[in-house]
């Protein structure tokens, strides 16, 4: 049984749940993003899951306060709560959360060196280990909200990994003649001239899929 991954959005076709890849019609399309069959590549069997975490994550299961959360996490919590306030039309509260988020963003420093390979190692570890354990816990606790966040970010992470690999190989060519967009809701990255009508991962309309400009 083989698996094939869509290099556009990261969807994985698994032969064990249906027809053999070669038996699929030539006009088979990715059910997530509509990419043609030719955009898929075979997934190399990943080695046994013995990779070790590139991060020291052991101290991060405790109670929340500014000593147990990293500055980056506090920043992300506050920027997300700012959006919550914006939805509720609590504008001074929104601005206050954003101020705290900005403060901790400026404080936040990556633990390891700052190269794309380091990011690649972290996303590899997420995709090999972290998502599986989080998904298992979300399922056993029937936490569909957590499950939703995991389904979305696992797809967005797969896309990140695909693009980190491509950037590593193709360098600037990856973006030279095209644009890059990020879904403001789920983080899905799209490379192309115009974004899809709706996000292939979280289904938000394209007004929320934002271009990242150059320079």
């Amino acid at each position, binding site marked *: 049984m083989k698996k094939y991954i869509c290099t556009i959005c990261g969807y994985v076709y698994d032969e064990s749940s249906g027809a053999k890849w070669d038996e699929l019609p030539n006009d088979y399309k990715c059910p997530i993003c509509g990419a043609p069959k030719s955009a898929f590549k075979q997934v190399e069997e990943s080695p046994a899951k013995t990779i070790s975490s590139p991060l020291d994550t052991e101290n991060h299961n405790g109670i929340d306060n500014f000593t147990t959360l990293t500055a980056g996490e506090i920043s992300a919590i506050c920027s*997300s709560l700012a959006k919550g306030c914006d939805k509720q039309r*609590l504008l001074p*509260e929104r601005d206050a959360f954003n*101020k705290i988020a900005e403060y901790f963003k400026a404080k936040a420093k990556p633990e390891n060196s700052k*190269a*794309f390979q380091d990011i690649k190692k972290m996303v590899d570890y997420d995709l090999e280990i972290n998502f599986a*354990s989080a998904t298992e816990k979300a399922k056993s606790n029937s*936490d569909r909200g957590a499950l939703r966040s995991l389904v979305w*970010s696992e797809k967005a992470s797969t896309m990140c990994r695909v693009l980190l690999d491509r950037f590593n190989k193709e360098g600037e060519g990856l973006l030279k003649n095209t644009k890059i967009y990020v879904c403001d809701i789920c983080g899905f990255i799209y490379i192309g001239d115009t974004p899809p009508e709706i996000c292939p991962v979280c289904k938000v309309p394209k007004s929320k899929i934002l271009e990242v400009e150059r320079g």
Partner: protein
Amino acid sequence: MPAFRNVSMCGKDCMCLYVCPTGATDTEDSIIDVNKCISGCSACAQACPSGAISIVPESYPPQQPKSPEVIATQRKLAYSKAQQWQAAEAIAATTDNPITKQFATAIAASNLRMAEDILRESGYMLPQSNEARKLLESLLEYEEPGFPKGAVDLLLKKL
């Protein structure tokens, strides 16, 4: 509970102008005038053919409880995503190459969105939640120059 118009959905059909008893919906900047809006009315939201008006609640039920196991695994992932966000930000801030910078900025944005969403599903859904309050209270003891303590005070007072 005041009415709120989502301007990007408003088709300018003007039903809300006809039904509003106070004229709160008829404003030059399209923002419904909360000072004129009558709590509990909701006539405009019911009449709007575009579904562009919603009634903003004044209070919210407690957020869905999260099991400690789920919190732990969500946090572990969020921590990793926050690290990837920061690493990508650091690349974007230090490179001279415009395409590298653009790519790193996209990777950073993607990871921040993921971190935010995963954290929301680890107990930080509502700004009014106990979890958010506890975090804010702990920040009262945070002593660093330049830290916007006023923002923490405001949030603890208003939320």
